[in-house]
């Protein structure tokens, strides 16, 4: 594992840049624990100050320090992305592996559910959820809903690999040796699909963070939990763009773009690592 990381660092520029960007974002998020102000308090600093040494990212019209506010916001946004990605990974792994391995009517039933989720228009449904639940729509609830909506594509991907694994000799031997379905899936097939899962995790985080930011910019989420989208929402509420308080939305946008690009590059380089042909080419191995 360490050798893989070392090789990726040495030979893969995308991985280096991605790691750097994600690293900066993670450090920012970690700084939130050192924040001198409670994240929800307003008018703790003079409002509308441009970036300076005292307030590196300026202050908002609500009297909050943009820098410290941003650290909390990016922490919540990242945690949201990770929570959605982990929950939906569990779903897509369980359904994909089981469906591909079992085949037959189990596969048909699970995949018709899967296809239903793939064609559902997500955004209107999420807005609908907000209008139905209103104040009960918490951060955790939104993560749960998005995880339930975000597993379908990857379940199909994992199913396709599981279908191939099912016919391999080692699976036949596992069956012959009397391993149960659960044991075969957990011990023989799960390690095989893990690299694919790593790669899709990053993309899934990007997807969920993107949707979360979109929803909060429009105010369709719990606006009292500071997130990147929430910050932009409040900036819009205070017409920051017209008032010239550009630092209020420019820094959150910059940080979330950094997180996006970083995660995307990590996913791309991870893909390149998983495909041995592109890995060899990058390392100057095979001629092609």
């Amino acid at each position, binding site marked *: 594992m360490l050798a893989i990381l070392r090789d990726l660092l040495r030979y893969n520029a995308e991985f280096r840049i991605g790691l750097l960007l994600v690293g900066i974002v993670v450090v920012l998020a970690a700084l939130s624990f050192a924040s001198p102000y409670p994240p929800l308090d307003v008018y703790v600093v003079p409002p509308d100050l441009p970036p300076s040494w005292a307030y590196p990212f300026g202050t908002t019209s609500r009297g909050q320090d943009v820098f410290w506010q941003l650290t909390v916001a990016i922490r919540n946004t990242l945690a949201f992305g990770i929570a959605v990605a982990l929950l939906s990974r569990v779903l897509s792994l369980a359904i994909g592996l089981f469906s591909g391995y079992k085949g037959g009517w189990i596969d048909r039933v699970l995949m018709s559910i899967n296809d239903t989720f793939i064609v559902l228009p997500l955004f209107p449904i999420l807005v609908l959820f907000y209008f139905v639940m209103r104040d009960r729509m918490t951060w955790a609830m939104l993560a749960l809903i998005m995880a339930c909506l975000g597993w379908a594509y990857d379940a199909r991907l994992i199913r396709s690999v599981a279908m191939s694994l099912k016919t391999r000799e080692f699976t036949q031997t596992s069956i012959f*040796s009397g*391993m149960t379905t659960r044991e075969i899936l957990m011990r023989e097939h799960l390690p*095989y699909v893990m690299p694919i899962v790593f790669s899709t995790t990053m993309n899934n985080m990007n997807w969920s963070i993107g949707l979360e930011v979109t929803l909060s910019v429009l105010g369709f989420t719990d606006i009292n939990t500071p997130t990147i989208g929430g910050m932009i929402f409040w900036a819009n509420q205070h017409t920051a763009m017209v008032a010239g308080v550009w630092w209020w939305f420019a820094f959150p946008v910059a940080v979330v773009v950094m997180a996006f690009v970083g995660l995307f590059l990590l996913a791309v380089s991870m893909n390149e690592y998983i495909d041995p042909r592109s890995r060899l080419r990058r390392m100057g191995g095979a001629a092609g």
Partner: protein
Amino acid sequence: MSAPVPAVPSAAAAAAPVPAAPVLSVQDLKAYYRTRYFGVTRDVRAVDGVSFEVRAGEIYGLAGESSSGKTTLIKAIAGAIRPPLEVVGGTMTFSFLPGSPGLHRASPAEVAGIRWRHLSYIMQGSMNVLNPVRRVKHSFDDFAFRHMGLARSAFWAEVEAHLARVDLDPSVLAAYPHELSGGMRQRVTIALATLCRPEFVIADEPTTALDVLVQKTVLGMIRSVQREIGSSLLFVTHDMGVHAALTDRLAIMYAGRLAEEGRTAEIFARPRHPYTRHLVGSLPRIGDASERKSLDGTPPNLADPPPGCRFHPRCPLAMDVCRREQPAMIADGPDHRVACFAVHPQSEGHP
């Protein structure tokens, strides 16, 4: 190992003229691939009325071309039956499972108790028996540990001792399968299959993917391990050279039925069945420059086999009776059986 090795006669006994008790006795086995589409049942008769015995301590060879039903036969014997394959008739009696018609009728608990401990299966393409993303030791752990009934440390000691029998260093346990050569992987597979000292091992073309030199080593190893643990081996391959080198007795399969069975040396020296004669005649001999004739035609479609003897459309000796009736397996000399009207004209009317 302290696990009880059943009262299997030693290799010397198997070579003795007195036939030992059979480990496996197959009677009139019929295994079809049965599909039902829109109410129409269609059978592919991959194994159709096969009877033979595998004696304790012997290596029993099963030869036949592709699609002659070899793999179906051993799948049925090993109980590795998945739809659409069905055992539609006949029995398979194991010495370690008396009174049962075969693993396809055994309860899951019975099957679990028998596999690996009494019956083990080296699969076709067994180079890939090891999971490519897990270390070799995990394969041993997953597949064999539950059947050994040993404590962890005793289990690993036994694994290492057993690996030494196939000339492997214990360090292969820490390797991934792709780090081993083809021959090493094959030896790991053999070690894995014979770890519990089963009475009966089925090997389905275990050396087909290896080159001739490695094949020779691996075959020698299979033989020595089989002798050492005293198990019976059902060895399946289309490679007649391998059969000549390894097996004690040999059965020739054609289109889902046995054509001939006998001691390997006898089959090679004096083949009776016209198909066997062609098969043996096709083997190259050094110094013999005569042209090898190939048989016209192809093996029959097993969904719609020809009536009578299944070989008759290609048989140079085909007679009228061959088109009407199925020849029975009839003894011809000691330890030899053949199913052919040309060999046994008197067998007419006794299908």
